[in-house]
């Protein structure tokens, strides 16, 4: 290969690494102090870009100088810093003590809200930004042209690293950030004004995100997808570097930047896969990242956020279950075609949600990427029916859970080696790999357009008949999963969740049991995906998106993840609401985001949890 080309390629990789570091450093600092993984960090980055393309041109109209350009960039970053402060005061300080899953969901709620606000304010079309005066030319490097602005960016990252290091070493604020990152309780004991420290940290983190975004405007037009695409990369960087470590983020950014620059030459289609594979390998070798430190485990006995005591069905519950089944059977007879279709979707989602709570509620394995197994099941079914094999529906519905289970076996092998927030991040990363593969491998998967013409076999082609097929399979699978929760295997999962040390000391192979549960849940989600595929006739990559994974989490959360049957109620409730409201408003994401936050703050035990609490209170009053 031409050496000049290699040099230019490396420089361009380093420029990307530099940008990535500016953004990731903010994410990792915020995590270090608050222990919250801020999903909305990508949204702050996007806001930086949009504010940049709004502010910078106005300043350039006054005076077309580099000073004005960079003043505009800094103004945009400062404005985003203030938005970060707002976010801390209004939301984050209410969720510092809640479980990680709730924190992730609440900040994802902010992502949804910002998406709709940005679209409302700036419109759906990409907006190109101005270029930086005096940095518009190219530099000759060994006979190759390299953009001057890229060259400039290349130095910004190291400059930010130096400034952050000075801040951390020389100022009281920086020392407090380091102290809080190393030992949170210590800072409380020192009598530091924690509220100020946390607000200040959010300002710094948001400022860095905004700076990263505003600096991008000469390179990429501001667009509505910037938030999620950058946040996954930033997650990968912070996880590889070690959550909370700024130097770690720097090293990881360099690795990722170069891997992308050269990976694209060797495997143009699977650069993303390479990045995530690197992350998986790093986490297996160093579970806390390259420069991270193990989380001090709380040695106190805290009640886990999940299914607690198991009570078998009483007469009342049996009656409710029987009524639900009868009502189900009546749907195709009483309702119109549309209601039947919604019924099919709810059944498929109910199975997917139930399988997710099998992991989260019983196993304490917080999967943030359950859509991967649902989507793989759907694609497996669809591709087998439509592809060269032309399998009938029956075969495809056998293949769907197998595919979901196989994918879960592969990903789960890595996932169950981790715990807590690292585990959640890795499940998310694997879901994003899957998404990228299905999105980019267009020859097989149809890419963005997906697969069409996925219809049931002739005998099941009527919607009513297919409804009964789905009802039979979904209910059977749910009953089976429920049985497992009440069986020794389910108890073993809960035991490993409650105390891995104790489980290990009574001979339980924690990792293997978690892995098996991951496979079971993946297979069930795969079946759900297969059933869903035939109801719509088409499949596209949104089935694997983060949004879908969050929908599943919302279902178990709104139903109550401390209960066994809650996810079913949640699936029905969530999908019915979505189906009813979504056509009525252009602001669906805004309202969804808001409801996620409200549920996390006000009803963390969900609907069934609330009913249970009510019944207990009633029994208490009668007894007292």
């Amino acid at each position: 290969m031409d050496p000049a080309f290699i040099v230019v390629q490396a420089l361009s990789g380093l420029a990307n690494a530099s940008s990535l570091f500016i953004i990731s450093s903010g994410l990792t600092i915020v995590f270090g102090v608050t222990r919250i993984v801020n999903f909305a960090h990508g949204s702050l980055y996007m806001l930086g870009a949009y504010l940049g393309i709004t502010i910078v041109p106005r300043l350039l109209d006054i005076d077309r100088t580099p000073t004005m350009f960079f003043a505009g960039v800094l103004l945009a970053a400062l404005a985003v810093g203030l938005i970060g402060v707002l976010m801390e005061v209004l939301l984050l300080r209410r969720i510092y003590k809640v479980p990680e899953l709730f924190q992730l969901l609440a900040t994802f709620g902010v992502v949804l809200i910002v998406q709709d606000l940005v679209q409302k304010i700036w419109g759906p079309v990409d907006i190109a930004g101005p270029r930086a005066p005096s940095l518009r030319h190219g530099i000759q490097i060994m006979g190759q042209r390299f953009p001057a602005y890229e060259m400039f960016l290349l130095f910004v990252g190291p400059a930010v690293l130096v400034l952050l290091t000075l801040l951390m070493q020389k100022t009281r604020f920086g020392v407090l950030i380091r102290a809080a990152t190393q030992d949170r309780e210590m800072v409380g004991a020192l009598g530091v004004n924690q509220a100020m420290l946390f607000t200040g940290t959010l300002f710094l983190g948001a400022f860095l995100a905004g700076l990263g975004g505003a600096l991008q405007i000469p390179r990429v037009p501001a667009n509505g997808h910037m938030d999620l695409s950058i946040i996954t990369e930033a997650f990968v960087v912070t996880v590889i570097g070690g959550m909370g470590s700024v130097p770690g983020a720097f090293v990881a950014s360099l690795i990722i930047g170069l891997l992308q620059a050269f990976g694209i030459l060797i495997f143009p289609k699977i650069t993303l896969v390479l990045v995530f594979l690197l992350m998986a390998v790093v986490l297996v070798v160093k579970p806390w990242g390259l420069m991270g430190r193990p989380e001090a485990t709380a040695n106190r006995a805290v009640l886990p956020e999940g299914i607690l005591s198991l009570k078998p069905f009483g007469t009342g519950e049996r009656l409710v279950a029987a009524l639900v089944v009868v009502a189900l059977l009546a749907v195709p007879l009483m309702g119109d075609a549309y209601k039947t279709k919604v019924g099919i979707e709810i059944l498929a989602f109910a199975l997917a949600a139930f399988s997710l709570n099998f992991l989260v509620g019983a196993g304490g394995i917080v999967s943030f990427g359950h859509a991967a197994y649902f989507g793989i099941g759907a694609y497996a079914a669809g591709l087998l029916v439509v592809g060269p094999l032309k399998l009938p529906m029956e075969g495809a519905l056998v293949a769907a859970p197998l595919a979901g289970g196989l994918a879960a076996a592969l990903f789960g092998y890595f996932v169950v080696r981790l715990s807590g927030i690292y585990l959640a991040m890795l499940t998310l990363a694997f879901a994003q790999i899957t998404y990228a593969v299905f999105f980019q491998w267009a020859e097989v998967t149809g890419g963005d357009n997906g697969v069409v013409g996925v219809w049931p076999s002739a005998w099941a082609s009527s919607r009513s008949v297919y409804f009964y097929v789905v009802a039979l399979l979904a209910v059977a699978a749910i009953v089976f999963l429920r049985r497992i929760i009440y069986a020794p295997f389910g108890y073993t999962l809960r035991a490993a969740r409650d105390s891995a040390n104790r489980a290990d000391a009574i001979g339980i192979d924690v990792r293997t049991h978690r892995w098996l549960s991951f496979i079971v849940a993946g297979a069930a989600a795969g079946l759900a995906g297969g059933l869903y595929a035939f109801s719509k006739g088409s499949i596209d990559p949104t089935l694997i998106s983060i949004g879908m994974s969050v929908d599943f989490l919302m279902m178990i959360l709104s139903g109550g993840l401390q209960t066994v049957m809650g996810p079913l109620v949640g699936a029905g409730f969530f999908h019915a609401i979505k189906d009813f409201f979504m056509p009525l408003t252009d602001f669906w994401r805004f309202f969804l985001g808001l409801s996620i936050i409200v549920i996390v703050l006000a009803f963390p035990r969900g609907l069934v949890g609330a009913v249970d609490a009510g019944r207990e209170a009633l029994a208490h009053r009668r007894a007292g």
Partner: protein
Amino acid sequence: MLLSVQGLQKRFGGLVAAKDVSFDLAAGELLAIIGPNGAGKSTTFNMVGGQLRPDTGRVMLAGEDVTGLPPRLVWRKGVGRTFQIAQTFVSMSVVENVQMALISFHERTRDLTADATSLYRTEALAILDGVGLTEMADRSVSELAYGDVKRVELAVALASEPKLLLMDEPTAGMAPRERAQLMELTASIARARKIGVLFTEHDMDAVFGHADRIVVLVRGEIIARGTPEEVRADQRVKQVYLGETGVQAALKARRAAQA
């Protein structure tokens, strides 16, 4: 000999946490490891239990080499353990905690269909009876007083009919009366069923009142060993660990034990 520890050594970087540690433990005997903080008690303990792999040396259990086996396999060979901070399954009831240990003991953890709430319940209740927890069987562990949680842990450890019990600071965090009760209970069970007990402890009453023999570790090395009387009278132990007050406390504990 039930447990024979031979020449265990463990380094962490430049620090020698355990150096040529050797001792034996007979069935039905209570052996205490004592020493100041950082003396290598936990390190030694974790090398016997399988949490740590020794650099050199051997751990023999009833004549079988168990060095370096992971904790769950050490458990299979007949070693139960309790933790300094009680580790139980907090979402389960007392009896379910013991049932869980029995499910694992009978290798049924992958059973997908049986009803776990009734599985081995009778056996579990019998074990709870042995530690005086029958009345609390169906209460949730999360509702119990800490002293009772410790007894649940003991019941869980006994479920697999172990030959050896490892107890890391069994009375830590308990009220003085509960401490004495737990140690008496442990000693009586151990002697009746010929279970060897290896424990670490800071509480002088527990050590000098109940141990048959004592090993004193300081900076990773055994500086004294013997009966409680011998260790109490040892000048070096007095110098580097017990001090005057410790010796007095030990003396009081011995008198109470002999009375």
